[in-house]
């Protein structure tokens, strides 16, 4: 028997899939459907969305059956959310602040806060890692954003 938390997770997952299917169906319904001989742009997406919505509903109904999901991040660690949020902020800031500064901050957070490496070790690793990666990749021809830094 699944615990209430796992059951809730399964139900949310089923609901998400069903919702995604229905939303997709709404969007796909505005595309040209065509017919079976000349399928339009929306023909295939409509079929897939209907199937996805049906499977989502089935997952919702059968949430209490089957083994509990292993990779349930929602019930787990706060550190996962720290990493995901940090990456989202990183992506937003990258074009404005630049690769080196963003990556130093990210690596510092990952090493110190998530990996619990000492402050000194984290700082040295973050700075050296970011600068060498930047220098190496720019030299290889990948134009990484410089941002606030002059180089």
């Amino acid at each position, binding site marked *: 028997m699944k615990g209430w938390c796992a059951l809730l997770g399964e139900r949310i997952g089923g609901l998400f899939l069903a919702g995604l299917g229905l939303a997709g169906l709404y969007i796909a319904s505005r595309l040209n459907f065509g017919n079976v001989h000349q399928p339009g742009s929306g023909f295939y997406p409509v079929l897939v969305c209907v199937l996805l919505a049906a499977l989502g509903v089935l997952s919702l109904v059968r949430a209490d059956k089957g083994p509990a999901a292993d*990779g349930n991040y929602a019930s787990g660690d706060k*550190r996962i959310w720290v990493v995901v949020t940090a990456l989202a902020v990183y992506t937003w800031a990258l074009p404005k602040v630049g690769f080196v500064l963003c990556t130093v901050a990210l690596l510092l957070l990952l090493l110190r806060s998530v990996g619990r490496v000492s402050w000194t070790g984290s700082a040295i690793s973050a700075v050296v890692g970011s600068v060498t990666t930047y220098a190496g990749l720019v030299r290889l021809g990948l134009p990484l954003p410089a941002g606030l830094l002059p180089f």
Partner: protein
Amino acid sequence: MSILESLMLGFSVSLEPMNLAYCFLGVLLGTLVGVVPGLGSAAAIALLLPVTYKMSATSAIIMLAGIWYGSMYGGSTTSILLRVPGESASVMTCLDGFEMARKGRAGAALGIAAFGSFIAGTIGLVGLALLAPPLAEFALDFGPPEYFALAVLGLTLVSYLGSGTVTKALAMACLGLLLGVVGLDPVRSEARFTFGVLSLQSGIELIPMVMGLFGMSQVLHMVRGIHASAEEVAKPPKGLRALLPNRDEWRDATGAIGRGSLIGFLVGILPGAGSTISSYVAYALEKRRSPHPERFGRGAIEGVAAPESANNAATASGFIPLLTLGLPANVVMALMLGAFMLHGITPGPTLLAQNPGMFWGIITSMFVGNVMLLVLNLPLIGLFAKLARLRTQYLMPVVVVACIVGAYGVNNNPFDIFMMLGFAPEWDDVLEGAFSPAEWLRAVSDDDWWMFVGWPVLLLVATQTLFLLPICARGFRRTEQGTSLRLSVAMAGVVAAALTIGLGFAAWNLLHLLQFELGYSTELEYEIELREHHRWLMVGIVGVSWLLWSVILLFFARRKNDHWVGTRLIGLLLGGTIAEVIVVLPLDIMVRRNNDCYCSTGTFASLCFSAWALLWLAGPGALIAVLSKRRRLWWETHCAGCGYEKGPSPGAKCSECGFEWHKNPARPT
């Protein structure tokens, strides 16, 4: 070109200095990836995909393939010394490998894993070299409907063999199909699901997707288990002599290596199965056939030899569907497909004809890589054991930066990093699904969609899929107070109806042929021209047939006595399903290739008859066999005398009819 000439051509490509260097780099990286727990081969390949941009396609695939089979070698080291599987395919090796190490036989376990891997890898490659060319030639006759049917079969198998519930696996595959349609419609150039974002018009980029699916999801896994470490570490052996198993161990392991290689090779070809499942199957088989199964889990060398051989043979055979049909058998092969596509090459039946050097170069590079791995692994085991204790705290930031740079580097666009983050949760089946819409669209756009039911090869594969769908639905196999028995019967009825319509087509074809043979008609049109009313007639036949089959199957399901001629027949019919595939598919292609029309060959009538007869007989047979198990379970929870439900605490006899259950609790005669 003979096989020897082809191999010579392959070796001339794979032994080029640059390719040799990439092969070495690949196997070295693969071994390291296998050794370091927390970083899988799929993640490593995904991380390195952008690096291959500037390489030649052959060198790129040689290197990525090296990572794949190299990780299988490396995975065994941590399994044996630390009881931490470096790869999912090495999980079974932990059981006996670590026990052997605790008993001071770590060297023998590592040695047999390396030798077994080498032997199995070589056997797998010989099989690949022998099987791939005829299969590629055979597949040249496949058209979009056949490819679509194969893709559906692949998705079904992935859902069946995947972890978790079948519903979720199918939903993930559907999500993959949906993601595959994002971008401009290839036929009408109409934007679909792009939400006005320009970056989405070319579809979802492969690299951010795989970086998210494999790289970032791996990071999240690392974050979860970042402070976990192996509790006990066995001492690595010192010196090469310590790695050699003794005579008794060799004797015990030889058969296991042979059987493991064979199982690995066969399971590796199946879509969705791969090296992990092959190692499970090989271990289970060894344990079952052993006269002393109690030794397993306590340091039996067969428990190391069989799974290690199986996972290496499976890596070689996994290339067969990719190189010959263009179908990825597992997620790593899906990444390989992506690598091919990045270089503008579509793997499949035409690869051998258009790029023989590349085709054979990849195969022979694996021979070379296997030798490299053997030489590399045995003397460096001590070093790898130290690397295996590398803390994930340091590994995780490296993977994060590699993912970011890889995703960003595709278009120099931060949007791709967001895209990668969106794929970070584990949605492995999504990737499998993302490749099939194109074939479907080609199939329905090229011709009338009725071609889906008219072509024998397609129908055979599709029917196999139909068998698998209800079988893999787990509810079908279980009983819960017998309540969903009717649903099972209805599902079986649908499938049986599909089979009946197939028989209808066969009869139609046969009638045309007989008319021609008997001189009533001088012209024989194989292609059936279906008019509108014919189509409705077909739908009607399916409907009637469904109802009819449901009644027949329901009758069977409710029948109390098991000892009747039908049950004996079921076993025979089940075998027919396998015979059907083995016999009919090659025959069909053979006949089709002889001439544009089936009719001009003498085997057509027999082929047509036997194909559909087998299809019809084997199909319901497989369904009835599944139903019979369910039926037995149903009767275990119901009174055999009157069918009354026993309830949670049944007494000695039925409260309805007084039937005494203990006399014959399941089924009276």
